[in-house]
């Protein structure tokens, strides 16, 4: 049972961070389908810090790794911000491009670094066996509570406060609902949308590093992040674009994902003879059902995905 809790918390904190990222971007009016790519980039940033600054003390290591992944995530999300806000590009197309680019660029970079060190090493992996020990905050038996889980929870609360209790949050949401109305009362829609996308880069990047450091001590960048960016989109939709619900959904969907990995360890689940793929599929099926049943009164931001046009009414 400890193992199930452990994995559920790991996956839930990743999904929570990335879904919150998507949530900020969509509330500002930009659909961020490139979360998967942003996660890979954030993971890369953190992994590079661990690779090249391996001897840092624990506290500094945590901060440096966080800074690295935030930097990479935010810089990468600029690609979306520039295309969607300045150039009114098709956001679906940009997101798709970013997902493919994220994995390809990370693979090329890591392989090049590995080959430069040792020409026989053609893998796209980065190892961080010792470095990741710094992230453990509390250890009870086999259960490990990492600093990142605490961080995810704190950011969940912060997100709720920012979105619903501050002037910035109100303005951000106004830009996603009706940007022309927001502009008419003096809100700078461009800046707000930039802010939304860059915050999603920050949270997406963090999600990436949490994902790759959680259970393993080496990451192969060729594999990307195995669809977690898309799963986070499902979390965001099921969570109705609201941090509180996103937190709960992340726990639920994280548990499904955990079950798919370790269901064989439980006698009663093993006896049900449900293939692991079903647990992987469930989050998507549930989200699709929710969309089907409740899309008529969906809470999705009304202006998401529509480039802002000043002259439009």
């Amino acid at each position, binding site marked *: 049972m400890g193992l199930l809790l452990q994995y559920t918390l790991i996956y839930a904190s990743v999904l929570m961070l990335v879904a919150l990222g998507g949530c900020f971007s969509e509330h500002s009016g930009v659909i961020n389908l490139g979360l998967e790519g942003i996660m890979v980039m954030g993971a890369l940033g953190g992994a590079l810090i661990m690779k090249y600054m391996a001897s840092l003390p624990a506290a500094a290591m945590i901060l440096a790794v966080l800074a690295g992944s935030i930097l990479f995530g935010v810089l990468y999300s600029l690609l979306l911000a520039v295309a969607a806000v300045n150039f009114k*590009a098709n956001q679906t197309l940009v997101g798709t491009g970013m997902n493919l*680019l994220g994995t*390809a660029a990370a693979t090329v970079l890591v392989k090049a670094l590995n080959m430069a060190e040792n020409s026989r090493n053609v893998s796209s992996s980065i190892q961080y066996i010792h470095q990741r020990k710094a992230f453990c905050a509390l250890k009870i038996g086999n259960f490990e509570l990492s600093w990142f889980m605490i961080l995810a929870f704190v950011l969940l609360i912060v997100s709720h406060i920012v979105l619903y209790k501050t002037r910035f949050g109100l303005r951000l949401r106004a830009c996603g609902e009706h940007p022309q109305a927001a502009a008419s009362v003096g809100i700078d829609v461009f800046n707000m949308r930039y802010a939304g996308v860059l915050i999603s880069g920050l949270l997406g990047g963090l999600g990436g590093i949490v994902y790759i450091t959680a259970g393993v001590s080496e990451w192969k960048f060729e594999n*990307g992040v*195995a669809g977690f960016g898309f799963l986070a989109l499902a979390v965001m939709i099921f969570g109705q674009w609201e941090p509180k619900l996103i937190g709960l959904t992340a726990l639920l969907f994280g548990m499904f994902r955990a079950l798919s990995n370790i269901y064989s360890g439980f006698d009663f689940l093993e006896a049900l003879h449900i293939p692991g793929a079903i647990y992987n599929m469930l989050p998507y099926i549930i989200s699709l059902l929710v*969309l089907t049943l409740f*899309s008529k009164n969906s809470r999705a931001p009304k202006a998401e995905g529509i480039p802002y046009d000043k002259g439009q009414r």
Partner: protein
Amino acid sequence: MNTKREKRSIWERPGVQTVAASLVCVLLGLLAGYIVLLMINPSGAGKALAAILKNFLFFTRPAVALEYFGSTLVKTAPLLMCTLSIFFSYKVGLFNIGASGQYTVGAGISLYLALAFHMPWYVCMIAAMIGGGILGGLTGILKAYRNVNEVIAGIMLNWISLYSVNTLLTKVKESSTTYTLALHTNSPQALIPAMGLNHLFSDNKYVTIAIVLVVLIAVLVWFVMEKTRLGYELKATGLNKNAAKYAGMKEKRNMILTMVISGCLAGLGSTFLYLSGIEQWSCAQTAVPAMGFNGIAAAFLGGLNPIGGIFSSFFIQHITSGGSYVDKMVYCSQISDLISSIIIYFCSFTLLFKHCLNRVFVKNRKGGAK
């Protein structure tokens, strides 16, 4: 009138603009790739980029080059089908990001029928097409009746399809690997026939009639879109579904039909790859096949035109295959994925680019006339 017409620059023609915009995307992609190659190792960068662009011409013996040209064509066929699928839905105002899932389902159904029931190739093909069509239709129904965004529904269905197909095909996989059984040895009747085409490509055993079929389908898609009443109705629905409804068209039926056809194209496309025997499905795949996403790239790079799509699909596959000829001691083959993904990114700017061309040249002409 005549004098005015002469003054129109060729840059104002939509066709010229589209080609120019696509070429700019390609050049920017190649430039970015070249810069990355330079950063990794400056001495071999030019040679590596040349290897990617040469692809099969890397082999100096014509017979060998021809054989690898055949392999590139075999892999272009499914990509072109995905391109057509994206194109078809986009013309009707729908973004079929679910093409990857429809492609996956097509692969799953056709391989399962071929390996578990030893069905002939045409049965597998038709079943794959129907499977893709049903999945596409489901997206269409959700969009038409429940107003579910087709992009989100498509993404969800992509992953549901991937996990289902992995589970299904695990039943027909090789016992020692994660790959499905080889068609050549286990189920040769399911291979698409070559009808002598393979002799044109130094007896490349993967070359089948698929590479001809796919071009015919591209022309057919163009014909349906541009020359038939159905195509006209579909495009009208895409431009403004309320106006289409007002004009007496069944706009909901049109949307669903579009997604069914789009799904059929993607589902059929997968058989062109897997029923040629050139690749086996890996049941341990953790990501949706990139074919559908590359189709998005090729569709936009081809200027959203089926005939343009033939060239852009070939180009994308050409550089993807070319990636395996770079010097593996210094570079890695993923460099070509990098180039094609940068091309996709820049493709989203093509409309802007056309807009700029229009502004510059129309302004010049107006200024000149006064």
